[in-house]
């Protein structure tokens, strides 16, 4: 059994930022990251980020990752990092089982921050398991991290920000985006992203979905269909498009499984993406000294994950008796930033979701 003060599960933006403020407060920390690299999904984001300067707006995602990773690597005497290490067990008494390079090890911490992020949702249609059908994040990983094209052409399903941004990135990499389809009657993500695609000649088809995929050993064609106002398929509106790749971008759901394993009280909140932990105002779960931040407690933009990470790092450190020299100023500042990021129309879902999580009705 290896004993630690604070263990952070997940080395994405939320986890890295929690490590930064907790270490500034004087705590020793272990970050456990499943993949071979720190930075989470930021490392494959080639676009300039929205938000404010405080959350690195107008900086490209992979450069934000470099900044956040740099902050953590600056304190090697305080922050230990395990890469290629998967937490396979999390127990209510703050014990963890970690799998790395064929070996299982036991850890125990005084406090734990779970920042596991999210996984991509899937869509039900005929032959949706054919090779050539990928999650949008997977396409980004393949092309922006490893420099490999997912296909010659692509059809994108979903017009949230991820679908819009990944379509643009596919075009930058030289892939023909044949269409972007959206089942809802309106585009879901930022319209500036949609306009960027449209001026490049990408047809954006709202009230349209995938009926089936066609292919033998891999995808060859996609059959699209229009939907009426009741979201029913309109017979006769089918259209077949030749393509060797189909990209699914229909939302994310929190990676909550470890929390469920630790018997944390969970709640299904649709607006937050699915099963999420019930939390206190300090981002603490029903298990004492087990904190959460980032997408695992509700799907939002990376800018919110960054600020939540900073905030939870402060709080977790304070709980263990390490008070950050600027605790009060920073805490107020992070709360204000989160309120600002969530205050517009795009923050409505999060505002409703967080109210439901607290067991309140959301008053518009």
């Amino acid at each position, binding site marked *: 059994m290896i004993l630690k003060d604070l263990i952070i599960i997940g080395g994405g933006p939320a986890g890295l930022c929690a490590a930064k403020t907790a270490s500034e407060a004087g705590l020793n920390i272990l970050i456990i990251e499943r*993949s071979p690299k720190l930075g989470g999904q930021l490392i494959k984001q080639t676009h300039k980020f929205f938000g404010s300067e405080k959350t690195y707006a107008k900086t490209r995602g992979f450069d934000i990752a470099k900044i956040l990773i740099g902050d953590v690597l600056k304190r090697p005497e305080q922050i230990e990092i395990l890469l290629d290490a998967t937490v396979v067990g999390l127990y209510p008494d703050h014990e963890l089982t970690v799998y790395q390079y064929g070996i299982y090890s036991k850890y125990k911490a005084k406090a734990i921050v779970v920042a596991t992020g999210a*996984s991509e949702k*899937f869509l039900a249609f005929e032959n949706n398991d054919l090779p050539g059908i990928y999650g949008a994040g997977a396409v980004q990983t*393949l092309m*922006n991290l490893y420099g490999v094209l997912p296909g*010659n052409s692509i059809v994108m399903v979903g017009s949230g920000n991820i679908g819009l941004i990944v379509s643009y990135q596919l075009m930058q990499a*030289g892939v023909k985006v044949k269409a972007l389809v959206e089942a809802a009657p309106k585009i879901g993500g930022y319209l500036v992203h949609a306009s960027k695609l449209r001026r490049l000649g990408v047809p954006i088809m709202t009230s349209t979905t995938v009926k089936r995929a066609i292919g033998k*050993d891999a995808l060859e064609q996609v059959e699209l269909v229009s939907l009426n106002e009741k979201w029913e398929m309109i017979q006769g509106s089918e259209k077949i498009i030749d393509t060797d790749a189909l990209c699914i971008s229909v939302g994310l759901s929190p990676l909550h499984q470890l929390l469920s394993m630790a018997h944390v009280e969970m709640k299904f909140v649709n607006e937050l993406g699915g099963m999420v932990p019930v939390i206190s105002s300090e981002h603490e779960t029903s298990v004492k000294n087990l904190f959460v931040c980032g997408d695992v407690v509700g799907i939002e933009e990376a800018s919110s994950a960054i600020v939540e990470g900073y905030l939870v790092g402060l709080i977790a450190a304070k709980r263990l008796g390490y008070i950050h020299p600027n605790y009060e100023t920073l805490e107020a500042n992070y709360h204000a930033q989160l309120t600002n990021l969530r205050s517009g129309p795009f923050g409505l879902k999060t505002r409703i979701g967080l109210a439901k999580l607290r067991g309140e009705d959301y008053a518009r």
Partner: protein
Amino acid sequence: MRIEKHPILTFEPKEELHFIFDGTPLTGYKGDTIQSALHACGIKKLSESIEHHRPRGFYCAIGNCASCDMTVNGKPNVRTCITMLEEGMVIISQKGKGVL
């Protein structure tokens, strides 16, 4: 299919790595995952579903979904999307649950 030129990213030339996929010798690069190396060689089918033997490719590329599980150097159920390619690896498309 590798990206040669990109307006934002630069992909530096890297050391070649040689591996065997279902008996065929192939080449990837240092820094590739097994899955990205296979995809760059045009290989999309990585395994077969257990019951109905339907072709399976990768889906999430970050180790969540297990759609890319393959047998690597005799070990089954390796998540090839987060396992880095190594020189001399023997990679077999997995059929069935795999046996240790």
